[in-house]
Structure formats: structure tokens, C-alpha cells
């Protein structure tokens, strides 16, 4: 009987990856990574917080109606009450409604800027790393140059030169953020270049473009995803800083950073409801994305260890 002739029991049930070969995105390897990720309680908490804020920002206003368009100086600076759950701000807007609106801008801009920055960075880095030689040198010196200028200075300068709308703001943040993924991907691409399967593609007559898109990029996908999560966290902080310093989108649009900037004038008056909720919102979203990023990085290590 076949069942009794089990001479070679598999010693582990881990999905095998071909020795010295590519990390093929077979279902089982990603499933293991997902399993590690979900075991990490902080990551699950992070995801929960992000989902909460998405619902809070977009579904919230449908339930809790407030006037976010016209100011009403009669009711300015009121504390929390039944009518206005978190009080009103310096020009009479309902604060809780403002937080929801602010959540929309922060999340929209944060996510969009991260996606754009990662896309540019990945392309730049893969091309530089794969091409090597002089092209790589030149491309990386460009990265070094832009990196030498502190991001906030460059951000403020660009935002002053080209008064941004939401779209332009996303582009400006992406311009400052694409550097890190570019560096990361270039490093990985450089090391992948020497692998046999990449050289095989060349031998078989595959074009450079084919190699970059079908072989290099999928193999740095894990690193890219981890970095993209951190990009979102950083972008949210940047949007907040820009709004705080006065360069966000003008009212009646709202942003958590801008709300804190308004509240600062009244810091001695003790209007705590104008300060703490907005600040806590920023910290909570950023911490959530950082948790997710950290957990994703740990899950990625597990996947790499199986090679």
C-alpha cells in the first residue's frame, strides 16, 4: 500500500522556493507573510485605526451634519455641548465636522502622494540600478542633490512658487518624497542584476524594459510596499506641517495641521477642544501607518528567510 511507504517525510511544511532563484509570487509565500502580519497585534490595531479614520472622514459627515462652508462668528470658540459635540473653532465652524473634513484631505493627499512618490521612485531606482555605470551615477547624483535640501524647505519653496491646489500639493509632496524609494530600489536592482535569471533574460534576447518590468520590479515588491506605507505616514505629517505653516489649501477646506495653527493663538485661553482632538487625530493616523509598515517589514523578513 502506498500510504505505508512514506520513506521521505517532508521535514517542514514551508512552501519551497527554488534554491538560489527568484522569489516567485506563489500564493503560499504571500500567505505566510500575511499570516505573520496578522499575528502582529499592533499591525491589526493599525489597520483598524486606518479603517476607522476612513469611515470617520467620509461616512461621518453623512451622519453628523454640520455647516462647513459659512462661518458664524456668533458661536465662535464654544466648548463642547449637545449641539456641537466637540465645540466650535475660532470662526464658528463645528469642530467635529472640521475634523472629519480634515481627515478627508489628510488621507486623500497622503495616500495619493505616497502612490505617486513610490511610482516615480521605483521607476527611477530600477532603471538606475539595472543600467549601472554612468547612467546610474548620474541618476543617483540627482537623487543626492535633491536629498541635500531639507524636505520642508524645498516643500515650502515649491508651494510658494506654485500656489497649490489639492492636485499640485500631491505633486509637490511627491517631488520631495520619491528619493527614498529610488535609493532602496536602486540598491536591490543592483544586486538583482547579477542573478542568473536576469542574465538569462538578456541571453535570450529580452529587452531592458522587459527585464525591469517583469523581473526586477516584482522582486522588490515587498520592499516597495513597506516603504510605501511609511511614505503615507510621512506624507500625512508633511500635509499637516504645510497647513500649520500656512500653505495648505485655503478655507473652507480643512486640515488638521491648519486647525492646530489656528488654535495656537488661543493656547493661553484654554480652548483645549481646539488643540487636542486635531493633534490626536494626526498622531493616531501616523502611528497606525507606522505600525502597519513595521509589521509589513517583519513579515517580509520571514518571507526572505525562507529562500
Amino acid at each position: 500500500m502506498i500510504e505505508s511507504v512514506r520513506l521521505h517525510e517532508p521535514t517542514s511544511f514551508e512552501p519551497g522556493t527554488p534554491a538560489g532563484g527568484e522569489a516567485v509570487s506563489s500564493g503560499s509565500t504571500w500567505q505566510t507573510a500575511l499570516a505573520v502580519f496578522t499575528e502582529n497585534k499592533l499591525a491589526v490595531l493599525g489597520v483598524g485605526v486606518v479603517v476607522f479614520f476612513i469611515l470617520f472622514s467620509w461616512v461621518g459627515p453623512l451622519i453628523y451634519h454640520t455647516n462647513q462652508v459659512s462661518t458664524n462668528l456668533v458661536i465662535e470658540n464654544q466648548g463642547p455641548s449637545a449641539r456641537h459635540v466637540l465645540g466650535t473653532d475660532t470662526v464658528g465652524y463645528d469642530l467635529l465636522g472640521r475634523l472629519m473634513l480634515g481627515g478627508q484631505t489628510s488621507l486623500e493627499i497622503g495616500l495619493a502622494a505616497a502612490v505617486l512618490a513610490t511610482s516615480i521612485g521605483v521607476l527611477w531606482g530600477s532603471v538606475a540600478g539595472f543600467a549601472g555605470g554612468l547612467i546610474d551615477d548620474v541618476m543617483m547624483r540627482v537623487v543626492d542633490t535633491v536629498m541635500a535640501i531639507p524636505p520642508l524647505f524645498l516643500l515650502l519653496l515649491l508651494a510658494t512658487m506654485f500656489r497649490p491646489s489639492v492636485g499640485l500639493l500631491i505633486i509637490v509632496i511627491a517631488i520631495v518624497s520619491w528619493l527614498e524609494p529610488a535609493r532602496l530600489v536602486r540598491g536591490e536592482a543592483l544586486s538583482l542584476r547579477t542573478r542568473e535569471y536576469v542574465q538569462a533574460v538578456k541571453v535570450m534576447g529580452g529587452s531592458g524594459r522587459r527585464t525591469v518590468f517583469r523581473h526586477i520590479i516584482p522582486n522588490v515588491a515587498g520592499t516597495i510596499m513597506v516603504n510605501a506605507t511609511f511614505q503615507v505616514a510621512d506624507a500625512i505629517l508633511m500635509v499637516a506641517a504645510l497647513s500649520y505653516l500656512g500653505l495648505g489649501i485655503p478655507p473652507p477646506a480643512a486640515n488638521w495641521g491648519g486647525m492646530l495653527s489656528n488654535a495656537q493663538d488661543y493656547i493661553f485661553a484654554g480652548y483645549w477642544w481646539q488643540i487636542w482632538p486635531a493633534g490626536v487625530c494626526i498622531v493616531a493616523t501616523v502611528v497606525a501607518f507606522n505600525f502597519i509598515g513595521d509589521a509589513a517589514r517583519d513579515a517580509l523578513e520571514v518571507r526572505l528567510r525562507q529562500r
Partner: protein
Amino acid sequence: MTAYLIRRVGQAIIVVFGVSLLVFVLLHLLPGGPARAVIGPRATKPQILAFDREYGLLKPLPVQYIAWVVQVLHGNLGFSYKQNQTVTSLLEQNVPRTMALAGTATVLALVVAVPLGVYEAVRRNHVDDYVLTGVSFLFYSMPTFFLGMILIIVFSITLPLFPPTGPNPALPLWGQVSNMVLPVATLCLVTIALFSRYMRSAVMDTIIQDYVRTAHAKGVPNLQVLVKHVVRNALVPIATLVGLSLPWILSGALIVEALFNYPGMGYLFWQAMEVEDFPVMLGTVLIVGVMVVLGSLLADILYAVLDPRVRYS
């Protein structure tokens, strides 16, 4: 060592050249060009033309670039009509104060973060590590201005210990130490969060090295292994990491200066931004870029001095 130095300095020179090119390009990307930047948004066409002719802006761009670089090397970074001073003199007044702020904060942060990182790494997976790393994480994720506001609320309002604004620019800094405390503390806390993260991973990477195992096996006391082998070796990459953090620290300084009205380079930049004083903004970006490049160069040289392996790669 010399080959490494030459290569590294060469790289720095290229980046400085790149920064100057970037600033020059941005200057010309301004709607209306440099003329508009200097005269103001209400410049009329004939005014712009006259300005262009006078300042040689009708010549081909590469020629202009060289002329501009020559001016910069002579110390001429433009003139701020809004403040009625040369950009250079404005920077001369404000950069030292920012360096006082950022320098103090960075040194203090290192003094705290290095032992903190070591402690966290040694005590990993224990409660103390979780708590400390968690708090560090929280500070790292907090927007700097919010942290500053919290410090003001606690230490200026609830407990009236320190003033909530920065020092008076007309008086020397060292006479106004209490005005420096909160700005330095704010910048310091976020920097500690960043550095202790680096330090913790560096120590964790070092602790598993073979030579540490050997030292333990030889019977070297635990504390000595820690200090003589682990910390000494973990500190080496920290030099480069501090160099890499300079842009981040300077951005943080900008926010702190805006929050506390601290009269430094960041505050100057922010005020210039509010009135669209482009000569000041562009001049500051150039100088800041050069400072960062010099800082990273020094950090990398220090790294090469501390770690002989780097010099031969």
C-alpha cells in the same frame, strides 16, 4: 584612505554643484523670472525688460549661470527688498542661531539616545523595552509643532516654568537660556526618538556578532563586553546616520522656530515665504543645501576614521 577621501570629496563637490544648479533653475522657473522675484508681483513689462537687460538676463542660460555662480562665490546672494538688507547679511545673523538650536538639540539627543538605544536592545522583549520603544515611536510619529504645543501647555501654562517664546534677537543668546529651553527640548525629543531607533537596531545587529560571543566565552565581564565591544562597534554607523539625519533635523528646526518665534534661519525662511521674498528663500535653500553636504561629508570622514574597513572598499 586618501582614495576614499578623494572620491568622497569629489562626490560632495558634484552635489554642491547640483544644488546650485537646482537653485538657479528654480530662480528661473518663478513665474515672471528673477525680475518678478526681485521687483515684486506688480512688475510691469517694461520694468521687467529693463531689469533683464541690466542684469544680463537676456544672455544664454549657461552664461547666466556662470555669472551667477561667480556672484555667489563673492558672497552676493541677492538683495531682499522686503527687509532692505542683503540676503547674505540676513543669513549671517540667523544661521548661527539655528546652529545653536540644532547643534544643542543634536548633541543632547545623542547623549540620551545612545545609552537609551543600548538599554532597549539589551532589554528587548522585556516590558521596559516595549514601553520605551513605544514612547519613542509615539514621539517619532508626532508632528513637531504638536509636541511643542504640548510642552508649552505643560511647562509654560500649567506649570509656569519656561517662557513660551524664543529669545529676543537683539540680545545675545547666552543671556536668555530660559527662552531656549522649550525650543531645544522640542527638537531634542523628536531627534532622540529617531536616534534611539537607529541605535537600538545597530546594537541588536552587533550583539549577535561572533566576536561578542568570543568575548563572552573568554570570560570577559558582561558590562565590559557591552562597552568595549558592542557599543564601540555599534557607534560607528551612527556617525553616517547622524549625517543622513541633518536634513530632517533642520526641517524640524524650521517648525520649532516657527512655533516659538525663534529668530533663526528657519524663521527667516518662513517669514520670507509669507511675503514671497524669493531672494531670501532661494539664498537660504542654497546655503542649507551646502551645509547639509558639508555635514554629511564630515560624518562620512568620521565614519572612515572609525571603521577601517570602509577605506579599502
